[in-house]
């Protein structure tokens, strides 16, 4: 039963992940008074890119081709690990949250290598920023998850998230869990190149971080990168929704539907954040990310007290 629910979550994640950017863009368009692109625009884009050919520069090596493939594989692996609220991950074992961090790190590493492989100084700049910000965001995520493992007395993400019940939220663990949620929200926005950290719309500006690294990719490679990014949005989103929607009804079907609804609401929330908050200056971003780590450490202090 639990295996079936996990399987359904993985299938839903693979199918629905491109819907999240669609919702975000629709909310942003609604805020700006426009109609905006169709909800399914990301699906159309992926379909279009898959039917194009890829162009490879003569200076690139196999690393440039491997980047998108490894990136997509890592995102897919991460989907198998994460639980969605009470629905356990398909692969669950003690310490899997560390694997999750490393899988995301490996994906980033190959994206950076592919960007450096092009020999473009512009992409090198983007890669440098990505590495810098990721190095600050990763401790925030790991420390936040560590606080939750201490609270749940378990090292497996699925058990940890199963322990985040409404009852736990209203006892002394509540403040700590909310702090972790705040830290994970910052990590979620930073890792997915969302607005206070990076602006996904500025395709050719010097301030952009993530988009600049994939400038030279085209066709199916670009489709793989985009799809991988959507899956990553889903992965980090589930970590957040698992805390913010502490519905553990005991029926996995109900939990699954509530969790999926939570993901769609989260996408809407990201749209609101992007419409109402300005992007931080580049020099302020590290402080923002350090604040996330501080929140995580505070959560650890509270649960270990």
């Amino acid at each position, binding site marked *: 039963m639990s295996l079936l629910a996990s399987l359904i979550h993985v299938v839903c994640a693979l199918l629905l992940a491109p819907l999240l950017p669609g919702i975000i863009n629709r909310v942003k368009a609604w805020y700006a008074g426009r109609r905006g692109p169709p909800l399914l625009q990301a699906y159309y884009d992926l379909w279009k890119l898959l039917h194009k050919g890829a162009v490879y520069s003569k200076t690139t090596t196999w690393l440039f081709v491997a980047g998108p493939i490894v990136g997509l594989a890592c995102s897919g692996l991460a989907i198998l690990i994460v639980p969605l609220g009470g629905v356990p991950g398909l692969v669950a074992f003690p310490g899997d949250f560390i694997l999750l961090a490393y899988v995301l790190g490996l994906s980033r590493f190959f994206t950076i290598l592919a960007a450096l492989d092009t020999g473009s100084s512009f992409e090198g700049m983007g890669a440098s920023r990505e590495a810098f910000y990721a190095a600050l965001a990763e401790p925030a995520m790991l420390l936040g998850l560590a606080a939750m493992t201490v609270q749940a007395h378990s090292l497996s993400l699925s058990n940890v998230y199963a322990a985040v019940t409404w009852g736990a939220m*209203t*006892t*002394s663990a*509540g*403040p*700590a869990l*909310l*702090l972790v949620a705040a830290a994970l929200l910052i990590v979620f926005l930073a890792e997915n190149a969302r607005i206070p950290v990076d602006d996904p719309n500025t395709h050719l500006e010097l301030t952009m971080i993530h988009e600049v690294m994939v400038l030279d990719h085209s066709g199916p490679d670009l489709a793989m990168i985009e799809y991988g990014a959507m899956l990553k949005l889903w992965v980090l989103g589930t970590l957040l929704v698992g805390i913010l929607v502490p519905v553990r009804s005991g029926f996995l079907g109900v939990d699954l539907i509530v969790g999926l609804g939570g993901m769609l609401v989260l996408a809407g929330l990201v749209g609101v954040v992007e419409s109402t908050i300005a992007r931080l200056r580049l020099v302020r971003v*590290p*402080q923002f990310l*350090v*604040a996330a780590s*501080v929140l995580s*450490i*505070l959560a650890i*202090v*509270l649960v270990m*007290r």
Partner: protein
Amino acid sequence: MNPWLDSVLVLLILTNLYLLGSSRISACIQSVAMQAVLLGLILLLAQPEGLGPRLLLLAAAGTIIKAGILPWLLRRAAREVGAQTEVEPLVGFTTSLLLGLVLLGAALHVAGRLRLPGQERSSLLVAVALFTTMVGLLLIVSRRKALMQTLGYLAMENGIYAFGLAFAVDEPLLVEMGVLLDVFVAVFVMGIAIHHISREFDHIDTDRLSALKD
């Protein structure tokens, strides 16, 4: 363990960290005012034997003075001086945040070892009170602008007030009132002094006062 009290205490910790990490003076004034409101809530929440009209009155008075009048005075001073941001603190904002964490750990450690008479309302309350006091001290020594130092002084007073709340609430309230009056007068004097300094010297950076020669 009262979850509401704990939530308010966590919010108090967050306002302290915000004070350490923010450069905008108006935001810091708001943060200190927020601390006063939270302290009023703590006074009400930390009562196991129920609320009386006297407590409500005291909470209201403290909140109005520290969250209403003092911030108003400080805002006026900031406007007249033209000070908007702390530009170059002696200790950077990120460093201050990390130092704040160290202070929090120290406060928790000390609060855990401290043997205090009387029953405590919450084990976290003493730690948070110590932490708030230390953050106030850190602000006083690490910022250049006199206004930020005044805010540090206010945060320190908030910490002392919280420390008083951790124990008997009824008896030392007279002392508390005395402290409040002191702070009120002190901020009043500081506001006037800041105003005069700025009129004479065009800035309120305190570290340049040492360059004055007669």
